[in-house]
């Protein structure tokens, strides 16, 4: 919608990312020279086994974590070297977040949670836009409820609405269906799909669930801190096949190392 130019620009780009935790013998390298780009208006899933670095990658891309080496940019803004204030402002204005759990403030109503980033910024979210999202997510009659009065699926839908309310450059979703039953999970994923198709939203989702990944336009596979595969138009089966393959590859690599 907003970026209706025919040229596909990148919403997020990372170049040569390195990230290590700890030092000396205990050092764990989470990201090894990762370069990846996420196109505007696309739904990308990041997959990989536990410890593959997929969450670290997302945190670095979203300005929640710092990188040791390499650059990250969101739209035209380079994150590298930004201070806490600038990063906070960037997260507030250009990024939407959906977490696996603890996504909402218990003291606020659903509506207040949805407009939270705008309220923090001291501005007002575009009412027409917010109404459209709320309608799409079928939350209109839940707006006055507190999170404790909502089901898990409804809570996550409220979180989705919040992520999109400020029309961010990109939405990062971290295992958004991890805590939900199949049906609620499907509803959330359908909405994410819709927001890409209809609202031209950019979404980057970390998941370990092949069925969730199947909703995406593209899957980036991470293993041992490196991008090992990039797959377009995934299906659940093709993703499962790939993952089996990686697990074998990783196991073989580990045998070789030891």
């Amino acid at each position, binding site marked *: 919608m907003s970026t209706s130019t025919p040229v596909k620009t990148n919403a997020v780009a990372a170049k040569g990312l390195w990230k290590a935790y700890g030092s000396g013998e205990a050092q764990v390298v989470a990201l090894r020279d990762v370069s990846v780009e996420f196109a505007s208006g696309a739904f990308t899933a990041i997959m990989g086994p536990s410890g593959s670095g997929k969450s670290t990658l997302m*945190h670095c891309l979203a300005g929640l974590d710092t990188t040791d080496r390499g650059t990250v940019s969101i739209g035209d803004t380079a994150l590298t070297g930004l201070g806490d204030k600038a990063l906070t402002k960037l997260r*507030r204005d250009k990024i939407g977040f959906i977490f696996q759990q*603890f*996504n*909402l*403030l218990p003291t606020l109503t659903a509506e207040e949670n949805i407009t939270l980033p705008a309220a923090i910024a001291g501005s007002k979210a575009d009412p027409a836009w917010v109404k459209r999202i709320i309608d799409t997510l079928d939350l209109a009659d839940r707006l006055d409820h507190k999170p404790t009065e909502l089901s898990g699926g409804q809570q996550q839908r409220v979180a989705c609405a919040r992520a999109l309310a400020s029309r961010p450059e990109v939405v990062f979703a971290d295992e958004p269906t991890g805590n939900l039953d199949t049906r609620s999970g499907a509803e959330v994923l359908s909405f994410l799909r819709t927001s890409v198709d209809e609202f031209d939203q950019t979404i980057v989702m970390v998941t370990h669930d092949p069925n969730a990944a199947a909703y995406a336009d593209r899957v980036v596979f991470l293993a041992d801190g490196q991008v090992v595969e990039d797959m377009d138009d995934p299906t659940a089966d093709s993703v499962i096949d790939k993952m089996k393959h990686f697990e074998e590859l990783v196991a073989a690599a580990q045998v070789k190392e030891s």
Partner: protein
Amino acid sequence: MLRATLKGMASRKARLALTSIAVLLGTMFVAAAMILTATMDKSVSGVISDAYSDVDIVVASGDGENGGASGPPGVAIPSIPGDVLSQIQGTDGVDRADGAVEGEINAIGSTGKLVGTFAPTIAFNWTEGSDEDDFIEMREGSGPAADDEVAVSTKFLADSGLDLGDTVTAYSYTADRAEYTIVGVFGLAGGRDSTAGETQMGFTTAEAQRLLTGGEDLYSSVYVYGTATTDDVESAIGTGDYRVQTGQEASDEAAEGFAVVADFMGYIFLGFGLVAVFVSVFLIVNTFTIIVAQRQRELALLRAIGAGRGQVVRSVLTEALLIGTVASIVGLGLGVLLGWGLSQAVSAYMMDGLPVTLLVPATTLWALVVGIGVTLLSALVPAVKASGVPPVAAMREAVNPPKPLRTITIVGAIVTVVGGALLALGLTDNLGDNTLTGMLVGVGITFVGITLLTPILSLPLVSVLGAVLSFTFAGKLGRLNAARNPRRTAITAAALMIAVALITGIATLVSSIKATTSDVLDTSLESDLVVSGLQAGANTPSFSRDTLTELREVPNVQRVADHYQDYRGTSVDDQDAMLSSSENLEESMGVFGTAVTEGSLSDLDANSIVVDETTAEDRGLELGDTVEVGFFDGETATFTIGAVLEDYLITNGWWVSPDYIEHFAIPKPLQAYIVVEPGADVGAVEDDVAQVLTDEPEVNVTNNAEFVDQQTGSLDTILGAVQILLALAMIIAVIGVVNTLVLSVLERTRELGLLRAVGMTRGQARRMITVESVIICLFGAVLGIAVGIGLGWTVQQALEGEGLDQFALPWGLIVTYLVAAVIVGLLAAIAPAARAAKLNVLGAIAYE
């Protein structure tokens, strides 16, 4: 299990430190109070035993106490005749026996007014014993050798503004003024100037007797030196009429009297120490509740792997025991230091530099018991609650939905009513001898009840207070957070409430007393100037009838109301009653502005009596009824009620005709109220009146405003002292606020992480915590002020019958405390807010 407890504690150092400080402060004050009392007792008895160190036997008159109704007002009556002294001197085994004459007198200082504003002047006879006494140290000159010579204490010299060699005028109720030359100056053992602020004058025995016994050969006590036993002395003078004690017994008894001051101070400190302990209970309960809530998963895990309920309770209680013990021991140690410091201070400011010998009594260990006991008891409820955590909670995300407030509110209401009822009973004199205890317990119970009601009160109050503060979004979040766990907010604020309520209650009483006093003077009193004196010792200040006549003749004085008064041994129909009189009752009532409701003041005769409505009603008397009046000197007479007056504080009581003034203990006017001619300069008249009073050492002239200040000035000092002492409870309460905030920040780590992730700046996070803090503090202050006003109002209502008929709020103080609450809220938020701002966003949102 113990190992798990200890490791757990090590990971919660900050929280435990804050809790410990509360226990520590409480224990410290309780211990200090006990040490102060014991130390002062010991130090005082040390000094008093100096006084009797070389005396073997002390003989005192039978009643031992002041003469009371049988003698001049309040002055000890020497009542041992000289021949008894001779008998003692003639007893076998008595080397020497000195008759001592002692009593209160008046001395005029260099300003023409009485020496010693707040303590009496004591006269005694200088004997051979005085020269040899270890207790009296001659500083300059010598003892009196002639009847017109006097030796005075260094304190007297300082207070009077006189010097060695000067002439000093002294008199008593029974003896006219005489002049004396100061020939000697003495101090007390240990380099002190006075025992408890009194000034002293040593006369020859004959002169002391002229001043105190009307010249009769009587003695207050006899100091016996030698090998004779008390039995020997008793058989010589006969038993019954006199008390014969060994020097040791006498000094013990005397010390007891003096130690009252120290005991009083000790009780005050103990009281405030206990308030501090009470306040720290809230803090401890809160801390342990939160610790348990946070450890829910850990405790559930322990339960899941096989720990019994009892083990969980013990685990929490062990933690409490360790904290209580360590904090109490440290508190005890600091309490010893504080007790020593306080003793020094009391000695320096209230006992003229009495040498202090530190004594830590065994009872101080009770402070330890209190500290540990309170900690354990406070932790018990959270501990039992902890044992109720189901093992399955280990597998779940911890959710602590706030529990409904119904039960706590009902219980709170009942407890409040019970406490209030007890208080009401005490205030309406239905508890007999237990009134004071009953009222204190009533106040305590009421506080507990209101504390239980605070959660339900917090809901509306926090919204209202918060609405003012939540003009930013962060502020709004802070308000919502404050309202989120009413129990926690309430208990935190309750600690603050108690301290503020006590201060406000006392301040309300003080301002009501002031308002009543100035109201009495403003509403009907027509006078512009008041002649009166402040009572220092047992002697009521008065002035001569001649001076009263002179006052009436001062230029521009229109009218004068004179007031004679007596309460010593006076009665109406055999019930104690205050008697008043005036030389011109009609004119005086005009000046006082007291209206006559029945009868008339114009046609009274010598046997007419006038009384106020309420007193007449209470006694079932009416105009024309007769009453039997008993006077100080034993005279009785029958009076007819000739007029009834409206109630008015100054004129309430019985007014007899001036013919009976001669039967009063002090047949002299105590006060005069002067009306200045309209248009005349009040200041100029005041100067003229002061001129007339130059020869009246006991009284001064003041205008109405000064008179109110003079009557109520000491109340401000008391209020100030109370505030300083309650500051301790305040500090503990503030620590409680910090504690609650730190814990809230920890508990809401993920929430904060989320807020920061979606764009909340550090400044906003800080603001959010600060608003929460200010709201909690304001809530506590508002509640405390409300409860304090209620408390003050209750007491004022109860005392209304005693003349406290005005209720006034201490507005200045109320505003000060509200502002202080905001400042305290800001300060308490500093550390927790910094913690919230420094939060690692990634760490906060990352799930395990």
